[in-house]
């Protein structure tokens, strides 16, 4: 029989170590000619066993661990964990701590969106945009260094407040940097939104309809670009977000261009939130940044926070001891990555890349669960299902003991 080469799909692997990606992950694009027919995602290159590690650390140490889930959203995870622990302890933090938390959260959103805009430019072949945007990102990192002492991984959060105060005499410096940043953002938005080539490359590419978003349960800017106005900051207000005026940015089209627009306009909202928080800081007493929490009672709690990529969810069970008994993390990319099945299929290979990048996937956030492989023959000996079965057995045994 003659083998039909024409109808055999070609598999194009992207990854696991690909110049396109900063992080290790493997996409298999099943192509027919130049059209992508299916996408498969293989992961596990970034699994570190964080949930298990968390059970061996004290509550104060867990903050430093969850910070290192993801370096780009290194405030969102401690933010969600703090919300979660404060639900268990049932404590209301001082207003000054709320403002400081929101300032850090929003600065992080700006730096993350700028980082993404640069990478998106790079994927589209606009290296100028990449260099330009990353240059504008530096003042934001400088602000972080002024406020927290480190460019990334800020270590600002603790149960009941924050670790460092923002002294009132620092406010003018921050304001000055923000003004400069606002000017640069205006330039950037003007250039990107009016560029005919960017329009041609991104309009109508990787479209996700409102129904797709609901089906895949996507969150964050990915959902907001398709007209689904979900934002934890508004739906389940935390920190200083109820105390300031801001609005949720949405777009209707759902294509890559809409995602760019949502992210760029969100940065302006973030700047406005930070400015209002700085005003709020001036009214509060300096140094009133935490409530002392002596011990954590037995209980369960959930905490949410709006990361630059969407909703971060933490679930913690405590038993009155020093460390979590169970710690569950769900990062936004976990649901957002599944939309690739819709946004990439039917595109050409060249458009698939920007569609992949458009949801701002973050793999270090996502890798919480893994299969157990036999190390020598590479065969899976335990699948996810088996692991669930094992965990159920463990529960049964524990039930009998208690």
């Amino acid at each position, binding site marked *: 029989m003659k083998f039909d080469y024409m109808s055999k799909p070609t598999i194009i692997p992207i990854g696991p170590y690909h110049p396109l990606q900063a*992080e290790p992950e493997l996409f298999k694009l099943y192509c027919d000619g130049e059209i992508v027919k299916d996408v498969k995602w293989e992961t596990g*290159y970034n699994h570190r066993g964080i949930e298990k590690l968390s059970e061996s650390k004290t509550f104060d140490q867990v903050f430093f661990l969850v910070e290192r889930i993801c*370096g780009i959203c290194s405030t969102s995870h401690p933010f969600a964990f703090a919300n979660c622990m404060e639900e268990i302890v049932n404590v209301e933090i001082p207003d000054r701590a709320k403002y400081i938390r929101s300032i850090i959260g929003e600065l992080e959103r700006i730096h993350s969106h700028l980082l993404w805009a640069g990478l998106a430019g790079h994927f589209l072949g606009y290296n100028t945009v990449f260099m330009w945007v990353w240059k504008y990102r530096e003042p934001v990192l400088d602000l972080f260094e002024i406020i927290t002492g480190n*460019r990334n991984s800020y270590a600002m959060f603790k149960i009941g407040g924050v670790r460092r105060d923002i002294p009132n005499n620092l406010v003018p410096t921050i304001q000055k940097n923000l003004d400069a940043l606002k000017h640069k953002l205006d330039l950037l938005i003007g250039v990107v939104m009016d560029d005919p080539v960017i329009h041609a490359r991104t309009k109508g590419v990787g479209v996700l309809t409102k129904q797709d978003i609901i089906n895949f349960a996507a969150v964050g800017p990915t959902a907001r670009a398709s007209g689904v106005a979900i934002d934890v900051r508004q739906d389940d207000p935390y920190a200083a977000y109820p105390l300031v005026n801001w609005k949720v940015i949405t777009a209707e089209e759902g294509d890559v261009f809409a995602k760019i627009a949502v992210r760029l306009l969100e940065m302006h909202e973030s700047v406005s939130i930070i400015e209002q928080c700085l005003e709020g800081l001036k009214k509060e007493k300096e140094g009133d940044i935490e409530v002392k929490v002596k011990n954590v009672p037995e209980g369960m709690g959930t905490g949410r926070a709006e990361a630059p990529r969407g909703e971060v969810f933490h679930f913690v069970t405590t038993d009155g001891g020093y460390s979590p008994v169970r710690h569950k993390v769900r990062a936004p990319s976990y649901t957002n990555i599944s939309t690739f099945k819709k946004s990439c299929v039917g595109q050409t290979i060249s458009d698939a890349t920007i569609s992949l990048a458009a949801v701002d996937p*973050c793999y*270090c956030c996502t890798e919480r669960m893994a299969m157990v492989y036999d190390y020598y023959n590479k065969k899976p000996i335990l699948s996810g299902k088996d692991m669930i079965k094992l965990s159920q057995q463990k529960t049964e045994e524990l039930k009998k003991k208690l």
Partner: protein
Amino acid sequence: MLKLGFKSYIFKKSLWLFHFGGASCNNCDIEILDCLTPRYDVERFGMLLVGSVRHADVLLISGSINQKDKVRLLEIYKQAPKPILVVAIGACSCTGGIFAEGNVFAGPVDKIIPVDAYIPGCPPKPEAILAGIFKLLKKK
């Protein structure tokens, strides 16, 4: 005529870098990328991030190495043209850092392949990364 050793001849100028991100939190990765962007701009020294390790003079490794990465790291080291300088960037690749006690951790980088320079920090600042690489070049 200057008599130069083979190694010092190879690593004299225009180093090409290949970046291997293990199971990292991305912080070191973005700081490495930051080195290329206008404020730090390592390209003025002829350094370039390349897509394949076969073209590289320096192998930058960031992040802790888990069981799945270990196989790939060995593979990539095998593909690299020798001599190659291996630089471990960040606390995770130097020692394992906060993830050293994890259940999937496969040892710090120097237990898997020989390492020429360690740049500690979580994450190291771009200045520290540049300083580390130049110190390494001076030594060679």
